[in-house]
């Protein structure tokens, strides 16, 4: 949710309420603004926390299922990663994998609350589908990275210090791209539909090209004498050329 009012009292209780209000269904969103306005007028910290907590309870009684899912899926993703990587022997790798999914989950959650990335609330199924689809795809990729790295085989030091951080940056940038693309501040439905269409077209064209003419020719070994006296073009270890 964007900060619709920028006042002086942006304390922890106000921030807590700011993060809870987007869970309201769109039809009840004005009640969230009402709660925020009331909170802004309250004085002592204890009162503010009591009020914010009560509001959160009121919101959670009948939340928007979509918004609740958008909150629970990233949180579940982090919890799953913590469990999946519990057996990783090399601690820095364990931590950096968890950090990767925390960064991605936090970026996705910010997408509903940071003004620049707040999704269109009404009449944009395309934007919603692109946003959720993009996030799920990136989540799937991140899950693959977690599963392939958690065993701790191979050069774990390089993986922890370079590999996973690079993946984090790449996936994070892709996610920010999806959020920006589906923000009403930056794109409308027509742009999104064209973007999705062109993306699918490009993928099909690439696949067709790749199947018709393999971009990497088969490897063959030439010019290295075979210790056994056999023809180096036919068999044995040697220099790979293309």
């Amino acid at each position, binding site marked *: 949710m964007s900060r619709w009012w920028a006042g002086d009292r942006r304390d922890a209780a106000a921030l807590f309420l700011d993060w809870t209000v987007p869970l309201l269904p769109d039809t009840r969103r004005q009640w969230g603004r*009402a709660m925020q306005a009331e909170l802004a007028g309250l004085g002592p910290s204890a009162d503010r926390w009591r009020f914010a907590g009560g509001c959160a309870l009121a919101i959670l009684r009948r939340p928007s299922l979509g918004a609740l899912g958008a909150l629970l899926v990233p949180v579940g993703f982090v919890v799953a990663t913590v469990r999946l990587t519990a057996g990783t022997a090399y601690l820095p790798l364990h931590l950096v994998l968890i950090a990767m999914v925390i960064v991605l989950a936090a970026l996705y959650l910010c997408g509903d609350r940071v003004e620049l990335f707040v999704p269109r609330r009404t009449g944009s199924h395309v934007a919603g589908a692109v946003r959720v689809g993009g996030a799920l795809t990136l989540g799937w990729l991140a899950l693959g990275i977690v599963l392939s790295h958690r065993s701790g085989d191979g050069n774990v030091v390089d993986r922890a210090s370079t590999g996973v951080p690079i993946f984090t940056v790449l996936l994070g940038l892709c996610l920010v791209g999806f959020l920006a693309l589906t923000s009403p501040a930056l794109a409308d439905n027509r742009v999104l539909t064209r973007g999705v269409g062109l993306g699918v077209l490009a993928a099909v064209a690439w696949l067709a090209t790749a199947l018709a003419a393999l971009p990497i020719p088969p490897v063959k070994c030439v010019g290295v004498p075979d210790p056994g006296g056999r023809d180096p073009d036919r068999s044995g270890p040697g220099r790979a050329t293309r």
Partner: protein
Amino acid sequence: MGRRLSPQSSGVLDALADDPITWRYGYELGQQVGLRAGTLYPILMRLSEGGLLEDSWESDPPAGRPPRHLYRLTALGQQAAAELGSASSDAATHSVRGIQGLATRSAS
């Protein structure tokens, strides 16, 4: 409203019916009826969605504070509050009569 009102909802309706013309805001109303935000706001939402409550935003808030959301009863809400009041007075009358009847029987 088709559904029977809870005692808390009736309390909110009563409090709003005390001064049906004045716009009230949530925190003050909660203080008056002794309800916390977690109970009050769902009641206000239900009353509003049932057409018993109209809402508005404060037009001229003091500097440094955002406009509050204000509430008051609609004509339907006032009617519901009046019916609720008469029903509760009927119930009170029945209770008094019942107690008097019991007292009479026990005396005889």
